[in-house]
């Protein structure tokens, strides 16, 4: 009897200790009947590290596996009696996490060994390009248009249409680029696909090359993703060896050379014209469109750029047909969207949901609701270019137009859930700080306007803001958006705009009452010990870095507000819940 032990080795799995578990198995298996394999992130991050055992075709997955449990598991495998605990798919939470999901882009993630091309091929990999090769380029493009696939990087432009532009462009040389410069803080969808199923991206590009006539391509991946880069390079080498990349692919006239470009850390390079400048070895600064990349892109040649998730969907549409994709629809949005669900929910992870599912279903059903017991307040979608959607609008469906109507954007898929302990003015400041630092400096409004907005937010969070500041903030948000050349500047005011739209009362509380309702902004809060709850255990006074807490043993302690730095370490330390923010 042959048994496989499969360890999930994605970045988060490794960070949770999956490598130690893998190493343990490697050292201790000691039987030729047991094969040790690896896979990538399956998306159920809250159960990491995950180990799957396949015996006689029966799969059993175990979660939260540490070395001690791995030992038990190995014993169980050897004597044919697997442990009854830690079985993730018997856990109700995991069931409701997995239940509403539909996996198209993530079909193989967490199921195959991403470093082994044969496993990809065994799941029907590279059948998409074979199918495409029996069709004309126009037919492939029409199929994509029919499927309704839109750019998953956030802008939501029809992919088939974009390809048609490149096909129609005049030129002897055309490029295809994959934007894997996932710079949004709080987003890891593309990383998971590159780490878990790199061949799907390569195959998607290959189909694009055939359909549009491009013969050279770049995958522009950020350097902060070392594992994704490594697996991409392995995948490209393996595909070249099997004549799936290079010259005369699969014995046809199709030639496609693919390179990996390592990004060097600039958020603005997610913007397509800046990304092209960066590929050419220049400072990543955007330029005015037109000319669009389809006319003049890399080295001034016609170029098409899509994001990782977009390309990963393509082979599946080729193999299963447009109807298998667009049967999931809401309005003008078709297929599925991958989200990185994180923040204050019980179950965090990578989720792929059909269009039309509501934010509430994602947050409450898949995510399991608030992890802190505090009421949920908002989700942030679309990263620094997106916005905060309040709880009252959680019934908004996942659809480009519906999300856009809230003032946020679909974005690339970051979804951060916030509870009542987040101050929305502070959140707006956080995102603005990010875009302000990442502004390339080309447009005055983006460079200086965001700086002035930042100063206003700083004044407000320090209790020095005025109501005139608020009006000025709204005006600036408007002009910065209108007067910037690229997406970064155009969308930078979004977090401020949406928080002003939905949480204006919080801004006003900061300005008029000099209070931070969430208890976050330090100059506006005070930390106090409730005398009747304090047992005088002295734990708080020991941990206080400022020496602000005094009192004798077994007597209520007192905080000196003049010395207190509001670090809240005492609150963390207090076992009796006697310290509060007022």
């Amino acid at each position, binding site marked *: 009897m042959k048994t496989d032990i499969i360890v999930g080795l994605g970045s988060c799995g*490794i960070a949770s200790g999956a490598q130690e578990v893998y190493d343990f198995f490697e050292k201790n298996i000691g039987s030729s009947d047991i094969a040790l394999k690896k896979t990538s992130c399956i998306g159920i991050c809250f159960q990491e590290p995950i180990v799957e055992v396949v015996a006689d075709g029966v799969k059993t997955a175990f979660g939260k596996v540490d070395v001690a449990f791995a030992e038990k598991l190995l014993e169980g495998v050897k004597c044919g009696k697997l442990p009854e605990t830690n079985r993730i798919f018997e856990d109700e939470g995991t069931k409701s996490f997995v239940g509403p999901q539909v996996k198209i882009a993530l079909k193989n993630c967490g199921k195959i060994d991403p470093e082994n091309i044969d496993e990809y091929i065994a799941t029907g990999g590279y059948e998409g390009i074979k199918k495409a090769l029996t069709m004309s380029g126009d037919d492939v493009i029409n199929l994509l248009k029919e499927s309704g696939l839109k750019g998953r990087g956030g802008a939501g432009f029809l992919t088939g249409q974009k390809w048609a532009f490149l096909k129609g462009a005049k030129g002897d040389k055309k490029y295809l680029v994959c934007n894997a410069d996932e710079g949004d803080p*709080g987003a890891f969808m593309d990383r998971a696909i590159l780490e878990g199923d790199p061949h799907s991206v390569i195959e998607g590009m290959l189909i694009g090359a055939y359909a549009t006539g491009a013969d050279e391509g770049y995958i522009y991946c950020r350097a*902060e993703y070392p594992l994704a880069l490594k697996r991409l390079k392995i995948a490209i080498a393996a595909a070249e060896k099997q004549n799936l990349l290079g010259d005369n692919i699969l014995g046809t006239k199709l030639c496609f050379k693919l390179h990996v470009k390592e*990004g060097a850390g600039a958020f603005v390079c997610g913007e397509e014209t800046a990304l092209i400048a*960066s590929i*050419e*070895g*220049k400072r*990543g600064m955007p330029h005015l469109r037109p000319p669009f990349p389809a006319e003049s892109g890399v080295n001034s040649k016609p170029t098409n750029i899509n994001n990782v998730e977009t390309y990963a969907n393509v082979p599946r549409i080729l193999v299963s047909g447009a109807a298998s994709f667009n049967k999931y629809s809401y309005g003008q949005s078709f297929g599925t969207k991958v989200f990185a669900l994180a923040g204050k929910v019980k179950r965090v992870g990578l989720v792929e949901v059909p269009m039309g599912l509501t934010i509430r279903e994602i947050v409450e059903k898949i995510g399991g609701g608030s992890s802190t017991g505090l009421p949920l307040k908002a989700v942030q979608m679309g990263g620094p270019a997106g916005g905060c959607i309040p709880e009252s609008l959680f019934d908004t469906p996942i659809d480009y137009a519906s999300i856009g109507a809230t003032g946020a954007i679909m974005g690339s898929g970051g979804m951060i859930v916030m509870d009542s302990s987040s101050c929305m003015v502070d959140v707006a400041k956080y995102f603005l700080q*990010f875009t302000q630092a990442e502004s390339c400096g080309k447009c005055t409004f983006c460079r200086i306007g965001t700086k002035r907005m930042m100063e206003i937010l700083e004044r407000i969070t320090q209790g020095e803001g005025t109501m005139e500041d608020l009006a000025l903030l709204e005006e600036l948000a408007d002009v910065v958006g209108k007067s910037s050349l690229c997406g970064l500047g155009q969308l930078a005011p979004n977090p401020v705009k949406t928080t002003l739209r939905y949480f204006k009362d919080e801004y006003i509380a900061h300005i008029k009452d000099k209070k931070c309702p969430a208890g976050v902004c330090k100059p506006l809060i005070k930390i106090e010990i409730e005398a009747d709850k304090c047992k005088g255990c002295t734990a708080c006074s020991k941990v206080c870095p400022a020496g602000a807490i005094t009192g004798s043993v077994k007597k209520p302690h007192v905080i000196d507000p003049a010395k207190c730095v509001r670090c809240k370490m005492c609150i963390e330390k207090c076992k009796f819940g006697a310290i509060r923010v007022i």
Partner: protein
Amino acid sequence: MKDKCCCNDVLNEAKEVVSDIGGTKDRIIPLLQEIQRRRGYLAEDLVNAVAEVTGIKPAEFFSVGTFYSQFRFTPLGKNIVKLCKGTACFVAGADSLIVEAESYLGIKSGGTTPDKLFTLEIVSCLGCCSLAPVVMINGKVYGKMTRARLKELLEEYRK
């Protein structure tokens, strides 16, 4: 930057870098990345030497080098501590970790301790949002970080 490269060792190293990576303008970023990989930072002598070997002006290298956040112009400490301030980590309290690390090490983000043991960097997102807040030390990710654990970790790396 006006010093011409007179040292043969540096020139030879530059030749090696260029023959590995290529010497055309579109290779400027990979060339800088290779220099940083070898030296830990963009050492001026090597950048100038690579410029000389490729025939590209040093200003073009420095123009690109100062634009991207990956590049640094001062040597790194022995241990590189990256504190994540992505959205998920921010919501989970990354700010207090930053305060803890800065006060424990006595340096600000981007700085290196005088004993050259630690370099502290605040990064936008390490992509391990499910483990927020996270800290990466020498490439290893530590999740669900608390102030107390961070201090312990830093003490361990100090040894």
